[in-house]
């Protein structure tokens, strides 16, 4: 990965970073913010390379010297990385970092620290970090990566320059997934699921998503045509497939995209999540009103909220399916 490749994907963020490098005026701390899947880490490594590379004359690190190569492989002694230990980044980890930073650099006077998932810092870890985020000694560069800027302490955010990475357009992401070997239908759905990590953790993500899609399509068909079947399908197919809460959230997402596609079809918009179900979508679009679809979407969003609040999943789904049938 180099700046030019990254520039195509994240023009705004990359221009900010290149500007800093060009003028040799990097701030002492950056926060890279952006959803999972955007190339935050690649940008951070590239910035680290540019900062430590001794051969660099322009904004581009040479990528070949031993500094550059070791930044990529993670064994550069003057680049420290912190990742959450278990669920959070603990105070002890930040203290270790602090201790490390009381020393001069190992090879040069420059030091970089990279904090992954900075939003998972505990409050006390955040406060310890603040201390030396504020008074860096020598040439120090801090890069905090986060998916959720608002979970960081305000006092940290105000002491760093925030660089926002734009979320990838869905179609672009679908293209990328297709290159990884997913079929057109799988890629279109997977690109739209926020929590891709859960899907990718399945034994066979491709097969899992195909089966999930079949369940969703069957369920919506029954909601529309065979209401008496709905609860049976829920028991037999939906509940066994979407097992824990994370998977259930994905199930609800898929349901949400179905009704959005129905709406899109009515409005003759392209970019569908179910591109290979066009006929079914047309048929359902003919039999429903925009108003009804919007109420159905609302019902699903309500369900998603309730699921996050630990409502019993079976009761939740039964209520949702009743609301979908009635359309209010």
């Amino acid at each position, binding site marked *: 990965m180099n700046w030019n490749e990254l520039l195509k994907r994240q023009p705004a963020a990359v221009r900010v970073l290149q500007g800093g490098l060009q003028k040799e005026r990097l701030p002492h701390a950056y926060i890279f913010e952006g959803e999972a899947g955007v190339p935050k880490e690649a940008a951070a490594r590239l910035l680290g390379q540019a900062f430590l590379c001794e051969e660099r004359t322009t904004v581009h690190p040479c990528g070949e010297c*031993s500094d550059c190569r*070791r930044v990529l492989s993670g064994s550069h002694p003057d680049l420290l990385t912190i990742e959450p230990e278990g669920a959070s980044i603990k105070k002890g980890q930040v203290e270790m970092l602090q201790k490390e930073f009381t020393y001069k650099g190992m090879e040069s006077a420059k030091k970089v620290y990279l904090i992954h998932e900075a939003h998972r810092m505990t409050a006390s870890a955040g406060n310890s970090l603040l201390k030396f985020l504020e008074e860096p*000694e020598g040439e120090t560069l801090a890069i905090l990566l986060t998916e959720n800027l608002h979970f960081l302490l305000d006092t940290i955010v105000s002491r760093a320059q925030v660089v926002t990475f734009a979320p990838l357009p869905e179609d672009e992401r679908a293209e990328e997934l297709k290159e990884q070997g997913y079929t057109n239908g799988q890629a279109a759905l997977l690109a739209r699921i926020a929590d891709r990590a859960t899907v990718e953790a399945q034994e066979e993500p491709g097969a899992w998503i195909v089966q999930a899609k079949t369940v969703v399509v069957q369920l919506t068909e029954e909601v529309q045509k065979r209401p008496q079947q709905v609860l049976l399908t829920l028991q037999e197919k939906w509940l066994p497939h979407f097992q824990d809460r994370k998977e259930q959230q994905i199930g609800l997402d898929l349901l949400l995209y179905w009704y959005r596609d129905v709406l899109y079809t009515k409005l003759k918009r392209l970019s569908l999540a179910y591109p290979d179900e066009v006929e079914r979508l047309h048929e359902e679009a003919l039999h429903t009103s925009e108003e009804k679809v919007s109420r159905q979407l609302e019902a699903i969003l309500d369900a998603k909220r309730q699921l996050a609040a630990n409502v019993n999943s079976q009761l939740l789904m039964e209520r949702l399916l009743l609301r979908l049938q009635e359309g209010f």
Partner: protein
Amino acid sequence: MKFTIDREEFVQGVQHVNRAISPRSTINVLTGIKIEADTDGLTLIGSDSDISIQSFIPVADEEKEYLQIEQPGSVVLQAKYFVDIVKKLPGDTIEIEVQEQFAATVRSGAVVFNLNGLDPEEYPRLPKLEEDQSFKIPQHLLKDMIRQTVFAVSSQETRPVLTGVNLEIEEGKMTFTATDSHRLAMRSAEVETDASLSLSNIVIPGKSLTELSRIMDDAEDLIEVVVTETQVLFKFDRLMFFSRLLDGKYPVTKNMVPTQTKTDVTLERNDLVQALERALLLSREAKNNVINVKTAGDALIEITSVSAEIGKVQENIEVASLNGEDLRISFNGKNILDALKVIDSDVISIQFTGAMSPFVVRPQDHDQMLHLFSPVRTY
């Protein structure tokens, strides 16, 4: 890479560099020993990023031939296993060969170990020593200087720069200073150097110096000390000891030492050590180590210590001389005792400048050492 080496020499080298390696290093490659063979000899490096030790084994010296290098090259091998393996090998020589993917074969006698190595390119580079900031000092003197100052460094991380010993050189005189802000130890010595060399604010971590003094012996031979931008190097015959320096500004200590004296006491070091040890038996229990000292007559001082729960102790010591105002002062006895233990003179002098001002303990034989203490306020 392929070479055959004398086992004893190799084991010794490996054990030396292994001292620097910490099994809990955050950088994976630092859990290994870097082995580098070129036409001059074999270089071994171990590091935990704070300190690094490099050991060199020449192809041969006057006595015998240690090494045959068939093919130069380098590799990093896991220290945890490698050290034990070479120690337990049966033959007089060891042959090490590295093939593709850093797969190493270690042969000795009828034993063959196949070890997976790491990429030597990943290993941190040690600083280049082109700078001319260097000086020479006898090994035993450096060892003494470390012992006489390093005990006074701060053990708390609140002011990290105080966990190190400050090295300064001016006009051929080197000074070590250590302080934890309650006490200060200073030791200076003449060194062999360019008269123009002037160094200041070189703060070497106390931990590194302790480790360094473990590998030094009381030999008379000179070792070379080289200071670079980020590290300091102690160069022995075949061993190089690198330590990272602490970042930050060391406090200016010169003007802390009082120039005037109000009360001047000279006494036998041993008398004071024993009296303090007795007095501390009680105050140690109170966890504050407070000792009170009072002048009591012409050549007598009175040492007392009180512990509310246990009781009190009083002792009079005869001193060689006592000049100046009468005095009553309290201080941390443990700190004084630590300093007295490293003073290499039988008679010491103490200069007080009042009950609330710092006081100085010096050996009487020479003026190259100084210990400064702040008193404790007890009322």
